[in-house]
């Protein structure tokens, strides 16, 4: 294990960023999101949850696939090059790392998404344990250990010291590169400090209101039963059909492919889509989900039923609680699960 004084972090960041991109939580106009480190960037390591999850480091909100150029009646195509440089993501939280695991299931299974794969290959993740978990967090429900994130490097901020523990080869490599900045911390004091922090985090996790949410009855085998439940009819009504939940979510992976006419040709790009939108999966004949109820149902069924059905029981929710915080109508996955529990529990 290593350590570094909090006040020395800017120098560390500078060192990392010297020859590669460094993504970390940056505050812009009062809101913290993952962004590229720059000298003038306002790094914010205190905000627990960035507004958007860091998934767009690996799966950007929009990315060009290829560009067509038109000259007279001739067309030429220029494919987009894949990510070739290494980069570092600093400060990801355990839930978001779990989110990447979900994305891996989608994009790294056959057929492999080469754009995503290239980014995953080149990215080294330095994760930060969740210092003060919040009431909207429920990662525990999904077996995530917020106290000890599973990443290339796990890190803990204990008062003014950052403890740094490489846990993979990638992490080891990065650590070596930063040897001048990181101080060895093999002493018992350091070990204790980290252990105490972990303990503190875990005990708070126990206390969180959502931590004991039961997902009983939600698995890949309950498709028709849940699909046909009359509860959806009640639950969806406040939904405004915006894409906030989808766009802040660390696991939502749907995208649309669109063309942009540049005047010189066409740029084909993909961008995040939301199953909440009325034109999601729009086809020539129209849309296979014509009502907001169906669209609303889709999101939760996907996270709690369809995804586990296809991925060895893995849910595609990680309990980050962003949707809980951000939904304009105060709807969220927890309320959905609870509603089913209540109504169906009562029934049983």
């Amino acid at each position, binding site marked *: 294990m290593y350590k570094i004084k909090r006040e020395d972090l800017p120098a560390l960041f500078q060192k990392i960023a010297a020859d590669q991109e460094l993504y970390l939580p940056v505050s812009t106009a009062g809101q913290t999101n993952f962004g590229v480190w720059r000298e003038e960037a306002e790094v914010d390591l205190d905000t627990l949850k960035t507004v958007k999850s860091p998934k767009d480091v690996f799966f950007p909100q929009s990315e060009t696939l290829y560009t067509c150029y038109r000259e007279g009646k001739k067309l030429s195509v220029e494919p987009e090059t894949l990510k070739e440089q290494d980069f570092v993501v600093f400060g990801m939280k355990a839930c978001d790392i779990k989110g990447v695991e979900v994305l891996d299931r989608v994009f790294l299974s056959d057929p492999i998404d080469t754009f995503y794969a290239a980014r995953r290959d080149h990215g080294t993740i330095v994760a930060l344990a969740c210092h003060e978990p919040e009431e909207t967090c429920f990662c525990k429900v999904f077996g995530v250990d917020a106290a000890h994130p599973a990443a290339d490097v796990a890190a803990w901020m204990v008062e003014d010291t950052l403890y740094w523990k490489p846990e993979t080869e990638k992490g080891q490599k990065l650590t070596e590169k930063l040897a001048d900045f990181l101080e060895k911390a093999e002493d018992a004091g350091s070990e204790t400090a980290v252990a105490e922090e972990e303990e503190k985090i875990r005990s708070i996790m126990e206390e969180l209101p959502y931590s004991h949410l039961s997902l009983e009855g939600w698995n890949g085998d309950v498709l028709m039963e849940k699909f046909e439940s009359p509860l959806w009819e009640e639950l969806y009504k406040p939904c405004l059909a915006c894409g906030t939940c989808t766009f802040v979510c660390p696991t939502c992976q749907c995208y649309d492919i669109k063309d*942009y006419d*540049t*005047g*010189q040709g066409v*740029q084909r790009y993909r961008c995040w889509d939301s199953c909440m939108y009325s034109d999601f999966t729009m086809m020539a004949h129209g849309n296979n989900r014509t009502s907001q109820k169906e669209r609303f149902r889709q999101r939760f069924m996907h996270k709690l039923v369809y995804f586990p059905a296809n991925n060895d029981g893995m849910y595609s929710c990680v309990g980050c609680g962003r949707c809980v915080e951000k939904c304009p109508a105060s709807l969220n996955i927890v309320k959905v699960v609870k509603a089913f529990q209540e109504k169906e529990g009562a029934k049983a």
Partner: protein
Amino acid sequence: MSIEAREEFKPKIVAFCCNWCSYAGADLAGSSRLSYSADVKIIRVPCSCRVNPMFILRAFERGADGVIICGCHPGDCHYTSGNYYARRRMTLLFSMLDFIGVENGRTRVEWVSAAEGVKFSQTMHEFVDKITSLGKNVRLEDLRCRKS
């Protein structure tokens, strides 16, 4: 910007002209051989009230450096009231563009009648000068549309 660079800069200017007045005014400027910069390209619309703010933003998106809307003088609209609506819409739009920091000289409305070939030509001269002095539009363009 250096003098040489300024000389090289050829602004792209889109002029939306009402069919009944300023388009005819431009015709009159033409038949009177009243020259103005070739940087101005005219799009014929039935009335200044046909000009949607989307058209203006689209022009900027695509790299236009200035957009001018010409219509009938207030009171002379071929359709009675179109230019009055256009006047409010454009005033508010221009004010919003100014609010977000787009140089307010990049947009202009001018009332030019069918009989005002001289005014048309002068207006275009002035506008081209203004845009040339402002230089390239960088605040409202979509970089993807830039010619590489």
